[in-house]
């Protein structure tokens, strides 16, 4: 039995200090176990500090690559806090889950490819998506061919096209002219008109948007789209 060791251990737990080693007997071990569970049940107590996560990230980078990470970490943690409410009646205790997700901003420099390849159907044909006059400089022109949908725009006078479907889970993107970005309604991912991911809140960055083959013929802009039917007749 070690009453002093136990008292000190419990006191350290209550003061948020690192508890000191001692040799407890069975009943003291049971009291420590209960004290730990009581402390762990405190509202919001078990969320890791962002500074700790960032610091460990740097240590891991040094271990894995021998160098600190290129992009300094910036508290992009998917932090889930469990909050426990214990009222005057403990029977009424209820666990409440509150999720707060920090927004991850992806560096705009070309650290990732601007597009995840070109959409090239096995069996396709050129399909008109707009008159040339409908796509002046600076305009993001939407199109929907059923089998594929996307946006065409001009870059240095030449037409370019990207898919209009989010690469995360396939929600349909919309273009916000005010910030010149494509936005996903599902998880607030945003893409540049070129297809590059700009911001997301996901654990892993989604892929950039595929580009489509596009050409300008006889006053019309055409994309190379699947020839087959969208749905069987």
């Amino acid at each position, binding site marked *: 039995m070690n009453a002093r060791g136990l008292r000190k251990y*419990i006191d350290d*737990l*209550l003061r948020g200090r*690192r*508890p000191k*080693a001692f040799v*407890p007997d*069975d*009943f003291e*071990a*049971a*009291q*420590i*176990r*209960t*004290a*730990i*569970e*009581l*402390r*762990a*049940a405190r*509202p919001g107590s*078990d*969320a*890791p*500090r962002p500074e*700790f*996560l960032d610091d*460990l*990230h740097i*240590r*891991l980078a040094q*271990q*894995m690559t021998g160098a600190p*990470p290129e992009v300094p970490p910036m508290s*992009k*943690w*998917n*932090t*889930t806090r*469990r909050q*426990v409410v*214990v009222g005057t*009646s*403990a*029977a009424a*205790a209820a*666990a409440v*889950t509150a999720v707060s997700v920090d927004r991850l901003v992806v560096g705009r420099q070309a650290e990732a490819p601007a597009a995840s390849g070109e959409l*090239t*159907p*096995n*069996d396709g044909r050129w399909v008109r998506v707009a008159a040339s006059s409908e796509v002046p400089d600076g305009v993001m022109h939407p199109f929907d061919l059923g089998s594929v949908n996307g946006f065409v725009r001009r870059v240095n006078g030449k037409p370019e096209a990207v898919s209009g479907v989010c690469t995360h889970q396939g929600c349909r993107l919309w273009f916000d002219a005010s910030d010149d970005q494509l936005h996903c309604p599902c998880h607030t991912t945003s893409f540049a008109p070129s297809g590059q991911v700009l911001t997301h809140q996901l*654990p*892993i960055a989604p892929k950039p948007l595929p580009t489509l*083959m*596009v*050409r300008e013929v006889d006053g019309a802009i055409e994309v*190379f789209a699947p020839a087959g039917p969208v749905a069987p007749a």
Partner: protein
Amino acid sequence: MSRNEPVGPRQLRAVPDPGAFHGYADWEAVYQDNATWVYRTLFARVGNRADAEDLTAEVFLAALRPLRLTASVAEVRAYLRATARTVLAAHWRETLGREITSIEDIEQPPESEEAISVAPQRVAEVLDTLPDNYRRILELRFLESNSIKESAAELGITVANAKVLQHRALRLAAQVNDGGQL
């Protein structure tokens, strides 16, 4: 526009197991996706930040290097939980010479609330069985982080009595918590 010509037909290939193909791109993705639940799992079993941080760092420093990135997300998480189990067991061996808490084998995915911690439910059940003043002192001290002085004032008793009350309440709670075997 030669690059804009369609490619020839490709061979149709079967994907062996689509479910197993959701892996991580690199070790950083593994860390960022799993650090929070690993920390919370350990915190629930040591009850203090300093130990939870040290043990979380130990888990990732030990686990990431030998990790195969071809493993699925579920496999990576099972491996991290197993590593955390080993690290926690070693921690108790070194500090108190016996296993105080452990990371159990469970069916739920490691990142689920049930797997991370059942402390809130267990605590609620235990507190419910205690006499009012025992329950109150534990709530005031452990859950609401009041000082012994504040707790004594709240209960309208002396500090010395509050200390004794806390001591007895924790002993009784521990007996209830361990199924009354002691």
